[in-house]
């Protein structure tokens, strides 16, 4: 047993730190740390810095412009970039559709799409969920009917994260209604500028425009844009989910959020003392810190098993549940730390450019909205109930 990083890994961590210190723009880091609003331009700027460094496509083989990191290196990158306040990469292009194209796509598709993901020319979004198909994804109804060199697509996707910025969407569509639900689904890449595609915002309870509905009305998609074989999309989708779930535990992000919470609790007052010295509140922080420690080691154990050639299975489902609960607890405490000042909802203060006086804590305005926004963590990426069903079947054999 050895839980320490090797000399090489430590050297790698130093490289990562140096890079982040030198290249991460201070304004972007400030936004991330304080939970302020990020613009599309912020994401694009950071992406270009990472691409230039060769550290953007961490899940890709080197031949396509990826970087060959071990699982431990990826973990180090995740922890350090969260700690420094680097934005998380928007995963849909680089970490979701790209691995599928690399594994199942045609050579032409690789040549066409991968460089455009790196350059930022294509901003991807994920078209899986439908109003009637959430947890039961295989029940999806969006139809793609072959007509010569094209598919004609009709239907509706929903909850499409950042679809308002995207110009490409990867979709699961039904190409066969005669067979078992899972066997008639295809994986289709759709240019969102095609006539018949309409994007409509959904505003979430915290007032943000983060998700969308996407409508397809007789949308003509070249057959060229089918990934792999027709009706085999479910296999590709499942492959993609393994990528989606890695990192959903968000340990690095929780560590950053915890240190932010401590900073806030150090500034807030209760009975004339910093809140962090209040016995009740201190205990609450201690409890979540302990839980995070345990989850963090569990995370490392999974990483080590992958490094040793294992495949993370249902353990990552347990970790997703745990990790999201921990993150939600941290956001709960951050909101609680504000006392009565958790009530105001001052959107102006969420912009970094805001120069007025803050109503309470300098980072206070973001805390209640964030608490509500983070409710999503236990719903998306396979709800926590669904994760538990997976563990029930795969690990417990029940």
């Amino acid at each position, binding site marked *: 047993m050895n839980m320490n990083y090797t000399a090489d890994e430590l050297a790698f961590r130093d490289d990562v730190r140096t890079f982040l210190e030198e290249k991460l723009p201070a304004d972007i880091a400030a936004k991330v740390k304080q939970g302020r609003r990020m613009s599309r331009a912020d994401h694009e700027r950071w992406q270009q810095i990472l691409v230039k460094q060769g550290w953007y496509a961490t899940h890709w083989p080197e031949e396509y412009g990826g970087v060959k990191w071990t699982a431990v290196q990826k973990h180090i990158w995740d922890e350090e970039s969260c700690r420094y306040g680097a934005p998380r990469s928007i995963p849909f292009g680089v970490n979701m559709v790209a691995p599928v194209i690399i594994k199942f796509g045609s050579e032409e598709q690789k040549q066409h799409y991968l460089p455009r993901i790196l350059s930022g020319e294509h901003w991807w979004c994920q078209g899986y969920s439908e109003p009637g198909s959430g947890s039961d994804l295989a029940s999806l109804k969006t139809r793609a009917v072959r007509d010569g060199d094209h598919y004609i697509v009709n239907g509706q996707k929903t909850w499409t994260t950042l679809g308002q910025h995207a110009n490409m969407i990867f979709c699961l569509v039904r190409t066969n209604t005669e067979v078992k639900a899972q066997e008639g689904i295809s994986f289709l890449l759709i240019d969102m500028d095609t006539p018949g595609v309409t994007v409509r915002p959904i505003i979430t*309870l915290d007032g943000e425009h983060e998700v969308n509905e996407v409508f397809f009305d007789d949308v003509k998609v070249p057959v060229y844009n089918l990934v792999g074989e027709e009706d085999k999309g479910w296999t590709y989708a499942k492959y993609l989910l393994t990528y989606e779930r890695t990192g959903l535990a968000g340990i690095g992000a929780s560590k950053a959020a915890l240190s932010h919470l401590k900073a806030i609790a150090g500034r807030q007052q209760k009975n004339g003392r910093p809140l962090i010295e209040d016995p009740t509140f201190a205990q609450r922080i201690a409890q979540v810190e302990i839980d995070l420690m345990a989850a963090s080691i569990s995370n490392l154990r999974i990483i080590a098993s992958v490094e040793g050639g294992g495949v993370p299975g249902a353990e990552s489902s347990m970790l997703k549940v745990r990790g999201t609960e921990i993150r939600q607890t941290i956001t709960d405490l951050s909101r609680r730390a504000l006392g009565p000042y958790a009530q105001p909802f001052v959107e102006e203060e969420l912009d970094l450019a805001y120069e007025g006086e803050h109503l309470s804590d300098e980072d206070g305005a973001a805390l209640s909205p964030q608490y509500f926004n983070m*409710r999503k963590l236990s*719903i998306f990426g396979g709800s926590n109930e669904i994760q538990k069903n997976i563990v029930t079947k795969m690990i417990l054999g029940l």
Partner: protein
Amino acid sequence: MDFNLNEEQQMLQDTVARLVRGEYEFEKRLKFSESEQGYSEDFWKQLGELGLCAVPFPEELGGFGGSGVDVQSVMTELGRGLCLEPYMQTVVLAGGLISQAGSDNQKEDWLSRIATGELKIVVGLDEPQSHYNLNDVETRAEKSGDGYVLNGRKGVLIGGHAADLILVSARTGGDSRDDSGVSLFAVDPNAEGVERRVYPTMDGAKGCDVFLNNVQVGADALIGAEGQAGPVIQYQAGRAVAALCAEAVGAMEESIKLTLEYLKTRKQFGVPIGKFQVLQHRMVDMSSELEQARSMSILAASVANDDASDERDRILAAAKNVTGRAGQFIAEQAIQLHGGIGMTWEYSLAHYAKRLIMINHQFGDDDHHLERYAGLLEAS
């Protein structure tokens, strides 16, 4: 034992329920919330006309002489409708403070006008450092001629943006957090030196912080005896706590109703999701949390108007602790069981959840009240 409402109380509850149902459907509520006023002036007027703003006041002041249980009935229905009007602030809290400590003139002038819905008074007790400790008052009032000069800042006055009059606590003596030396003053929000920073709140209401810069008030602005407001405030805060518990119960009932309907209609994997046992059990947990909260809301209402005592304080702290935890559990689980839909602005459930969480930030969350309760533990 009889936990049923008597005939009058039932009539009162029905009246409010009918009014809320008629005037406060969710789409309208969103519009009220987004308006400049932040609530419905028309609804407020109707509350006044129907005598509902007079419920807790003594009959000689045009009131109804209502008990804690009467207030509870009104608040639960307002909670069910997510109503935005400053009923708790004006009628329960300001009304209570004036009833208890005000001079005959003040009572006559203010209470009679609150009772008819003519006058809105909002109370500022919190401050940036106070974290629910109502004795933690740094705002100061210095004697000046016949009156006082006020300096300081009062935080998060829900409804304060539209108040005709504001009551604030301020120190006329003692140090921060002493329980003596606090006085209560009425301040005209348009007086010189008063500034309001107005903002929306997370749960769709509006509020403000009030900045007091050398604000001159007359001797008649003092409510009750100088330096003696502490216990009055504590007492009336207890009534506000009971009212908030009742409001929370209304919001919880509605959240549970919506979630239950959803479990019966939303289908995944070919069955209504309510067929999944884990969700059934979760729904049971939510319902039993509600029952606990309902019990404590009844208990709180029954002691709200009793004479001050440790026993009353204990019960009120316990009630707020239970409803705070129940409200948070129900809010979070209701969103979770709805999946993505529960996260959306357009759907009422999310707004119930937000109100339930924000109730914890008014007059203390469950931690605060657990500490209070612990501080009042009987040895044996």
